[in-house]
């Protein structure tokens, strides 16, 4: 049978992108157009549909900026602005990336440590697990300013408070995944270790740690995305001078919707890249242990 164009993978991707873009343009016309009509009517000026359509896509502070405006702003602040400048989106991205990575590493270490404790100690499971779950039911937006203020009182400012908030969000998926993963060892393998009289730590390093890895990587993908959200949220209420969060905040102060959308686009791109990097690590590691991927 001849392969049709509809079977191609790229075809689906292209169609999807076109559909999203078309929908976006339609929504931009509707939202910005309504605003323009209201303005004309308030000023008692004449308007035609053709002028509205033309203007809706180049409003300076649109309700919903169309894709080309967002992309132009993104391109300008990424490629046509010096990286050291405060107007550079690359600069802000690096600021956010810094606390994201620090928070992610701290969160992973904390998450794994709690999981190990829970798996090896029944008391710890009963006493600790409710707190772990409760910690995630508190809205991060509510607790983020408190963390910043408390840490500021002991002279911890800058990247640390933001990283702590990232950690707060990212340890949870790691703990949940690792508890499951560390318990996922094959029963036969566990009995094998038992017949050889392996100690807990030997069983951990020879068996449990490895059987947990697929779970760990699944968790890490969630955790790194959560760490990014944490970093951005941490930049919102703290009046931070840099970071994608501060770009969002200043954009909303001054009604710079295009700036907000460009920062959002950048955040999405960053999140996507971070998850891809984790997946790449996963693949390399699995290949090294000889499992065909």
């Amino acid at each position, binding site marked *: 049978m001849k392969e049709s164009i509809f079977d191609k993978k790229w075809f689906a991707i292209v169609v999807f992108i076109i559909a999203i873009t078309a929908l976006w343009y339609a929504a931009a016309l509707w939202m910005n157009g309504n605003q323009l009509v209201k303005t004309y009517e308030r000023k008692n000026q004449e308007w035609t549909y053709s002028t509205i359509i033309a203007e809706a896509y180049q409003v300076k502070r649109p309700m919903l900026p169309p894709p080309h405006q967002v992309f132009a702003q993104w391109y300008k602040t990424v490629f046509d602005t010096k990286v050291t400048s405060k107007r550079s989106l690359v600069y802000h991205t690096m600021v956010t990336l810094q606390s994201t990575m620090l928070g992610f590493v701290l969160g992973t270490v904390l998450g794994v440590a709690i999981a190990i404790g829970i798996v090896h100690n029944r008391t710890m499971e009963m006493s600790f697990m409710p707190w772990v779950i409760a910690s995630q039911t508190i809205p991060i937006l509510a607790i983020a300013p408190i963390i910043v203020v408390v840490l500021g009182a002991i002279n911890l400012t800058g990247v640390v408070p933001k990283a702590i908030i990232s950690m707060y969000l990212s340890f949870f998926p790691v703990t949940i995944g690792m508890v499951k993963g560390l318990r996922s060892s094959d029963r*036969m393998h566990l009995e094998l270790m038992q017949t050889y009289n392996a100690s807990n730590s*030997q069983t951990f390093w*020879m068996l449990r740690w490895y059987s947990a890895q697929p779970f760990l990587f699944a968790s890490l993908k969630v955790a790194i995305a959560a760490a990014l959200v944490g970093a951005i949220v941490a930049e919102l209420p703290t009046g931070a001078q840099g970071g994608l969060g501060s770009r969002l905040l200043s954009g909303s102060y001054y009604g710079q919707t295009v700036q907000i959308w460009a920062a959002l686009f950048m955040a999405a791109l960053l999140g996507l890249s971070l998850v891809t990097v984790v997946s790449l690590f996963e693949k390399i590691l699995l290949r090294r242990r000889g499992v065909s991927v």
Partner: protein
Amino acid sequence: MYAVENSTVAEESVSPQSPSSNKRVMIDVKDLSLVFQTNDGPVNALSDINLKIGEGDFVSFIGPSGCGKTTLLRVIADLEKQTAGSISVNGTTPEDARLNRLYGYVFQAAALLPWRTIKKNCAVPLEISGHSQAHQNKQIDKYLRMVGLQDFHEKYPWQLSGGMQQRASIARALCIEPDLLLMDEPFGALDEITRDHMNVELLKIWDETKKTVVFVTHSISEAVMLSTHIVVMSPRPGRITKVIESPLPRMKDLALRDTEAFHALAAEIRAALAEEHAID
């Protein structure tokens, strides 16, 4: 060879295989019972087991599923605890024997760690007992050669066939030179041709290493082919119905399977199994 009326006789029938009574008793099971508490009520997995296994013997447990043959092996290996009676292994409790690293256990599946190469898999028990790297290499070399896997050191388990994986798991069990080799239907998942081959290999290894082997199987010809003693078991409750001492030589080859003596022994086992089924 004689039929056994009760388990006390069964106990005696195993050990006097060799004319000299100075052979050490490796495993001594006395009035052992094991009851599992399940949601559907208690299950008598093992009932009044009496058995002596001498050092260097190759003893097979045979019986239909549910007869407790695997459970009995697991009690010996300290993977299950009896609820009544006693068992001693090498003069101590199974737990102490396990703590002294007396056991090599081969499971129904190869149970190799997929993230380790064949060589590193064999190293697991050696690493656990803290042997030096040089000693590890020496042992692994020796036993991988013995099971014919000397050219597969660096392969991962998934790169090997099922039979090769099982051989690797036997090499792993042998590497620490355990006094006791416990095997739970190790060749059950293999095709008959591979199984025949593995039986011959196992006999050679057993003859070379002089280990005591306890072997669980549901294949009559396998039991005849390998064992010095065959323990026939029956279910509900799991119990020993007959212990047969093999009149065949210790070392057997595949040609022996066409002899009269081989068939006679197989027929005796089959009769013992059928007898119990009639009672069931």
